[in-house]
């Protein structure tokens, strides 16, 4: 297996605020689904920005075997431009990459249809529900066909039903495309559900306290969420997290 991203003792510290993250050792393999779980303040978002190449490590090394524009991020908030329609928002990454108007529009349309928003192409973000806006954000992240998809607690602000529906959508998209996915969350259940490998972070500055292989998204029977296997995985990771909280 080839590593898509390697972190070697990567640390991030901010002036005046001290260490925020690390040292972190981590390898992301091509096509895997990884979840990063930790308490708020553990530096989860910092880790995500490090993986995205949006931030440089203060110490240590980050190796990214990725071309430019092969990474997409979905943030905690939908982060849509209010002055643009859903379609124009989704088209933006392609526009920035210099893809022509008709092609970018067709691809954006297809991406929105894929997330079930065929009828909301012209809608402005203000007219979308939280779940719909997050779907637009997801379509925008996928439209450029990224090899690495990073999600930063994308469902935190959504209600339980919407959250579960979106989680299943993200997983089915992942199964289709097999891009590497990193899902950051403070919710253990969500972490276990969204990944085949769960990394548990200590409280800030976050280090990896435990690493668990769990039943991956492509080896699950139907009704997995209610299964005893899922519950057992959740219990194991919960115990890891509890221990990680104490260790600091």
């Amino acid at each position, binding site marked *: 297996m080839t590593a898509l991203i390697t972190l070697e003792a990567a640390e991030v510290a901010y002036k005046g605020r001290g260490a925020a993250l690390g040292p972190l050792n981590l390898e992301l393999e091509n096509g895997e689904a990884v979840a990063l779980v930790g308490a708020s303040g553990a530096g989860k978002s910092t880790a995500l920005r490090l993986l*995205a190449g*949006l931030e440089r490590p203060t110490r240590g090394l980050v190796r990214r075997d990725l071309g430019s524009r092969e990474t997409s991020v979905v943030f905690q908030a939908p982060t849509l*431009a209010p002055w643009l329609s859903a379609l124009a928002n989704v088209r933006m990454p392609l526009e*920035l990459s210099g893809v022509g108007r008709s092609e970018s529009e067709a691809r954006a349309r297809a991406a929105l249809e894929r997330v079930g928003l065929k009828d909301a192409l012209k809608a402005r973000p203000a007219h979308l529900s939280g779940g719909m806006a997050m779907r637009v954000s997801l379509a925008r992240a996928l439209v450029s066909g990224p090899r690495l998809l990073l999600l930063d607690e994308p469902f935190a602000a959504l209600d339980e039903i919407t959250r579960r529906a979106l989680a299943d959508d993200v997983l089915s998209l992942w199964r289709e495309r097999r891009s590497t996915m990193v899902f950051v969350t403070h919710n253990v259940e969500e972490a276990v559900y969204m990944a085949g490998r769960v990394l548990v972070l200590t409280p800030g500055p976050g280090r990896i306290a435990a690493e668990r292989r769990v039943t991956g998204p492509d080896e699950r029977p139907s009704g997995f969420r209610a299964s005893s296997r899922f519950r057992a995985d959740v219990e194991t990771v919960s115990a890891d997290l509890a221990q990680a909280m104490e260790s600091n």
Partner: protein
Amino acid sequence: MGGARSWAAPAVAAVVLLAAWELGCRLLHAPTYLLPAPSAVAAAGVDNAGLLAASAWRTLAMALEALLVAAAVAGGLAIAAALSRTVDHIVRPLAAAVQVTPVVAIAPLVVIWAGIDHPQRAIVSLAAVVAFFPLFSGAVAGLASADRDLERLFDLYQATPLQRLALLRAPSAAPFLIEAVKVAAGLAIIGAVVAEFVAGSGAAQGLAWRILEAGNLLQTPRMFAAILVLAAMAGALNGLLGLVEKRLLSWWRGR
């Protein structure tokens, strides 16, 4: 109901105030040159309607011209500052210096530069100086107001500085710009009036000139009429821009 009541109370108050003023002037036999009764002001307004309208138009035209000049300069500088940190460091203190310098202090200098024969140029320039700062600081703040995560997305997709400006920062600045234009328009009128007091002459006869002229002749009712026209004009402009602001903002927000 609520709407009617919201303007009914101030309207009644205005009528009561005007009546008290009129009655007071008559009962106390106040000399007209000191405090003209509302009826005398109204009569002066009607008698000089054509002249006042023409002067109001002159002042308004000069103020709007100044607003355009100031917007072009402020917008250009703000964009340059957004694109280059060095420019930003150079321009900011200069803009602040322009803001704290009283317009009357630089008026004589501008009159010399504009040429004694071109008071209109001097007035427009001075009004533009007054209107400049809110436009500049609004544009600078607006261009820096884009959502942090959207900025990160633009980093991620390796947007060029021009793409970032055109597709993210400029549209994000829109609400700030609209507000800045509203503030600057009011200041441009004030600036035009002040500049006219200092630089005005027979060649540029705006409302300020009418006020000065009437004052010199102790035609106080005419003075009042000119002041009222000025206030009404500024109020109307403010109201109009308020409406435009509401419309543009609701379009920008998408609702």
